[in-house]
């Protein structure tokens, strides 16, 4: 008992008092306390504390290099009358809804395709996930080049096919810019949705489909009454994550448009960076970031209560 290894930080702290240590290690709650300590330290210092600090900063007029004074809800009043802020809220909701809906539709379709029997299935599945592996910024840079106003390969191909006559200004035109960033986001998000839904599909027993086929079910009916109900829990989880990550997206927009043209692609996260870090008005930036929290809580609550209701309907947990 006395010669325990001492690579654990907690033990180093208590090494001076072996009697105390052995007394504490005998108690399960104290042992758990030491085991939880590193995780708790990281999460409290760099997650919980900044979260609270951010809310506090949103009530101050802090700037970079100058401590702030409490100004009440002045930042929020200012944002309330700021049309660019409301534009960013609209953009964020628009971007999240459209991109998530398309990701879900294509992701589910791709998962159903990948679940079918075919040669080289394993390799194809691994290839599908590559867009998700590559850092977002680096693939966004590739999209930036694909969307270039002069040398875009898409414009070139469409002109050669005779469909258009001049280059499309993908990132310079308001509507095109929105469509372009949504496409890039969908491109990166589809593999995640598809592969996680595929994992859910693989838990569905094939005998259910065989039985349904014998009963004369069409392929749509097999999907609607077998696949979809059994897949609902995992769809809820995957789409919650997808919505959260899309709503708080920053890097794709920053690498592609930095919020332009004329703020048409500014999301709340990018506007918060622009106002908080670049312009140096930390208080205002923190207020924009804090304004995202109600949306996030709402999204999490909807999926949480949806799952609870479902569990209750089924009479047991369905993990």
């Amino acid at each position, binding site marked *: 008992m006395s010669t325990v*290894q001492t690579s654990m930080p907690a033990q180093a702290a208590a090494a001076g008092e072996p009697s105390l240590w052995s007394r504490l290690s005998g108690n399960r709650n104290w042992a758990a306390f030491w085991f939880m300590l590193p995780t708790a330290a990281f999460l409290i210092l760099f997650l919980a504390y900044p979260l609270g600090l951010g809310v506090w900063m949103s009530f101050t007029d802090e700037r970079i290099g100058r401590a702030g004074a409490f100004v009440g809800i002045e930042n929020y009043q200012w944002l309330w009358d700021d049309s660019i802020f409301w534009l960013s809220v609209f953009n964020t909701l628009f971007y999240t809804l459209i991109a998530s809906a398309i990701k879900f539709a294509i992701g589910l379709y791709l998962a159903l395709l990948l679940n079918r029997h075919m040669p080289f299935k394993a390799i*194809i599945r691994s290839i599908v996930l590559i867009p998700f*592996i590559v850092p977002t910024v680096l693939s966004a*840079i*590739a999209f930036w080049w694909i969307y270039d106003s002069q040398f875009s390969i898409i414009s070139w191909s469409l002109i050669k096919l005779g469909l258009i006559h001049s280059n499309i200004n993908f990132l310079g035109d308001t509507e095109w810019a929105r469509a372009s960033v949504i496409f890039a986001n969908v491109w990166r998000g589809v593999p995640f949705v598809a592969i996680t839904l595929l994992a859910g599909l693989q838990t569905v027993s094939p005998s259910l489909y065989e039985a349904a086929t014998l009963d004369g079910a069409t392929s749509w009916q097999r999907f609607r009454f077998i696949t979809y109900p059994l897949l609902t829990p995992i769809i809820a989880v995957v789409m919650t994550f997808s919505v959260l990550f899309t709503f708080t997206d920053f890097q794709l927009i920053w690498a592609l448009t930095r919020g332009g043209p004329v703020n048409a692609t500014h999301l709340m996260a990018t506007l918060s960076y622009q106002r908080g870090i670049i312009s140096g008005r930390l208080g205002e930036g923190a207020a924009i970031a804090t304004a995202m929290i109600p949306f*996030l809580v709402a999204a999490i609550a909807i999926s949480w209560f949806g799952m609870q209701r479902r569990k209750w309907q089924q009479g047991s947990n369905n*993990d």
Partner: protein
Amino acid sequence: MTDSTLQSKAAATAAGDDTEGMSYLESLPRRLVTLYLPLFLILVVLLFPFYWMVLTSIKPDEQLIDMEKFNPFWVVHPTFKHISKLLFETQYPRWLWNTMYVAVGATFLSIVASVLSAYAITRLRFKGAEAVGVLIFFAYLVPPSILFIPLASVIQAYGLFDSPLSLILVYPTLLIPFSTWLLMGYFKTIPYELEECALIDGATRWQILVKIIVPLAVPGLISAFIFSFTLCWNEFIYALTFLQSTPNKTVPVAIVNEFVDGDIYKWGSLMAGALVGSLPLVILYAFFVEHYVSAMTGAVKE
């Protein structure tokens, strides 16, 4: 598949992998239209940006900007000029090193912390263990986009601004919640009896963790490592906010800020930079596909 144990048979049926299922009911032309054609189209769209990245990074400048004389979909006389310029005339190796250093450091810290906390939550069953588990899950849902401004002032206050160390300390907040949940799933599958035997033989909790639990959870540790490493490599907003001086930057930040000038010949080296920055992850992924997928799906299923 030669060992005809019940288990492997059951696994094969459940996964539906090695069974032909009902696919014999379909004719080939029908499969062509409903399966291979859409799959092919989706794969082309998913892979095209990478093809374009590779092609651009080996294309001479004059071919890049003259799309009439040269077919842009192919390259004649490929060149390594962009890649050598990137590696020998910019600080790219330094940025790669920074990224690697931060990713390895943060991943290591996170895995150690996650093993300890996952073990405590699943096996020590202390007071409030379930509540702590749920809190950690919620920590996973807090996005960096709402934390970077207050964190910047925290980092400033600790005197870590513009230092890669700040990222090593901050990234675990993204990685620990995920890894803890993943490892909790693995630890739950290890039978209690093993632990009870060890306890009777006089092992301490610490010895049980290091000598029994951790070796049995190696696949889970690899999954957590791969996924965490990829997340670190991908992280952008913290790195962009905390790192100011050029030599300290990570690859994603440097690519966005250092290459973007008015030069129309920038594209070759920009794409080379994106390509070289992606390669380590793609290679790592190629070796650990199964672990990566189980990490991704495991965390979602929990």
